[in-house]
């Protein structure tokens, strides 16, 4: 009996302790989430809106700019995430070799971009890839190209620049996860494989990669989420241009809310598209990576 009473007062105390955090979370997270869900069913401009049912969803299917943003986002996702994760894995494998000369230098060098500010590095990339930027100067000087590449003016090259930028910024971040996981692998597993004559590529492909599977899943999920929310880089480097060729979903949401005549309801609907995509893609990745045994 005494224990039950003690239990109740502990419960009350416990709730009192977490209440401030819960109230703040409720106010600043749960409420906006629910409010935006409600908003996504509103139509109208500015503060002048009314319930529109599925009108916004219908509008999505007829909005060429949205479809453009969706396509661009998927192109970034499909091209950039695999390149980045494979690079991160290869770097991690190379830098995990204790005999490699200067490996702590390379580790730091590859990780360093992750601590730079998103906007600052984006501005730097913008200036480097300008028509008369260092990249063109360099390529011209070594004779790889005869005329400057219109990096930021051409739809294809603009996408390339964005992909280069986010790869530069985030590869080291993913590499750190792989390195940490690799250091937990028993070294004698590799020694056993070496004695047994398993070649280096097979040790990587048949031992390292499967043993890192949980981490690879984790990084691919967070990279997917990150790419679906891609905003800072495209906003700073290309502002979505030229002619919407690097417009992403997040940038479109921003434009809908703050640049164009505000359309809060429709912007919320596009946000929920991202939520649904994150859900679906994460689920697919978990299913693919599921242990079949």
């Amino acid at each position: 009996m005494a224990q039950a009473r003690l239990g109740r007062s502990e419960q009350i105390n416990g709730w009192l302790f977490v209440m401030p955090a819960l109230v703040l979370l409720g106010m600043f997270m749960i409420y906006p989430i629910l409010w935006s869900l409600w908003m996504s069913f509103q139509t109208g401009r500015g503060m002048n809106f009314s319930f529109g049912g599925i009108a916004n969803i219908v509008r999505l299917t007829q909005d060429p700019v949205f479809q453009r943003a969706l396509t661009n986002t998927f192109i970034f996702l499909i091209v950039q995430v695999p390149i980045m994760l494979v690079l991160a894995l290869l770097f991690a494998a190379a830098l995990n070799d204790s005999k490699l000369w200067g490996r702590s230098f390379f580790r730091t060098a590859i990780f360093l971009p992750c601590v730079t500010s998103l906007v600052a590095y984006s501005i730097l990339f913008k200036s480097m890839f300008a028509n008369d930027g260092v990249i063109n100067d360099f390529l011209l000087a070594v004779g790889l190209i005869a005329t400057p590449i219109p990096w930021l003016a051409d739809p294809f090259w603009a996408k390339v620049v964005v992909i280069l930028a986010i790869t530069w910024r985030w590869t080291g971040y993913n590499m750190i996860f792989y390195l940490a996981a690799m250091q937990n692998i028993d070294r004698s597993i590799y020694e056993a494989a070496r004695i047994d004559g398993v070649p280096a590529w097979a040790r990587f492909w048949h031992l390292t990669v499967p043993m890192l599977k949980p981490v690879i899943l984790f990084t691919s999920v967070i990279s997917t989420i990150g790419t679906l929310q891609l905003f800072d880089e495209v906003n700073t480097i290309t502002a979505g241009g030229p002619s919407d060729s690097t417009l992403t979903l997040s940038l479109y949401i921003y434009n809908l809310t703050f640049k164009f005549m505000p359309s809060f309801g429709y912007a919320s609907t596009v946000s929920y598209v991202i939520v649904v995509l994150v859900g679906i893609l994460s689920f697919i990745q978990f299913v693919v990576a599921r242990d079949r045994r």
Partner: protein
Amino acid sequence: MSGLRLRGVTKSFGSVKVIKGVDLDVADKEFVVFVGPSGCGKSTLLRMIAGLESVTAGELHIGDKLMNDVDPSRRGIAMVFQSYALYPHMTVRENMGFALRFAGVAKPEIQRQVQEAARILELEPLLDRLPRALSGGQRQRVAIGRAIVRHPEVFLFDEPLSNLDAELRVHMRIELARLHKELKTTIIYVTHDQVEAMTLADKIVVLRDGIIEQVGTPLQLYDDPDNLFVAGFIGSPKMNFLKGVIVEGGVRLPGHGDVVVPAREVAAAGTPVTVGLRPEHFAQGGPAMIGVRVELVEHLGGETYAYARHGQSELMTLATNNARDLAAGDTYEARFDPAELLVFGADGKRLR
């Protein structure tokens, strides 16, 4: 046929010399055990033979080939690690067959080899399990199976049983002895458990601090140790060491009532020596006698050990031929045959 020959082998990590010049011959099909205290360089020496560590100086021959700079996979060896080193995401079957895929062995042949190894090691019912679903002893057998399928000329084992409980250890020890008979290959086995060494080895190599202290059959090392270290390391319970002085016709034991134990004069009279007597030497009795007071009695059932001393002397361990009614505080006549006595000089070397 594949023996080993090591000549002047050394190993340094940076400026630290870990193996300080090892000469060793291992005959074909011999079961050799490296023993020694922790940190003496057993694993390092084994890993050098495997090719996982480079040889700083000296020559390492496996068979008739100089192997100093040969890749681990081309030395005709297989190694079983203390941590088992199984591939965690592969089934027992895949674990055992994995290396063969890269040796150009055809699939049906791999299957056959794996089946054969599984039969020898009684792993057949477990072939489709993952390592995490196996007990320690079963994992150990898989690790051995992975070595067997490659038909190496030399097996290397680095403390393969140290992660197992005592009972399983005894069982696996017997299994390993059986396996050696069945496979008829050279085995080099590292342990710091001298019971494992005594029971398994054809030949024991006692290492200390990167140097070989003595090489010999288990009984040679037990009966005829070259120095104090080997005498103390081999045998359980440990040999008793008593301070003594050489006198005419024997050794005087100043700590034990100045008894003079008859012995061959192995050094000039007056030389201080250390006398070694194994606990079990006291079980048979004999003409020599030391009077002691018992401080502690250990009943093992089959044998009763007394821990006793004479006055302020060092504590001695005595086998009592199962004197079950012995109790702490009793006085006891520790009798032994002086022929069993071993005499060591001040430098620890045996005086014969």
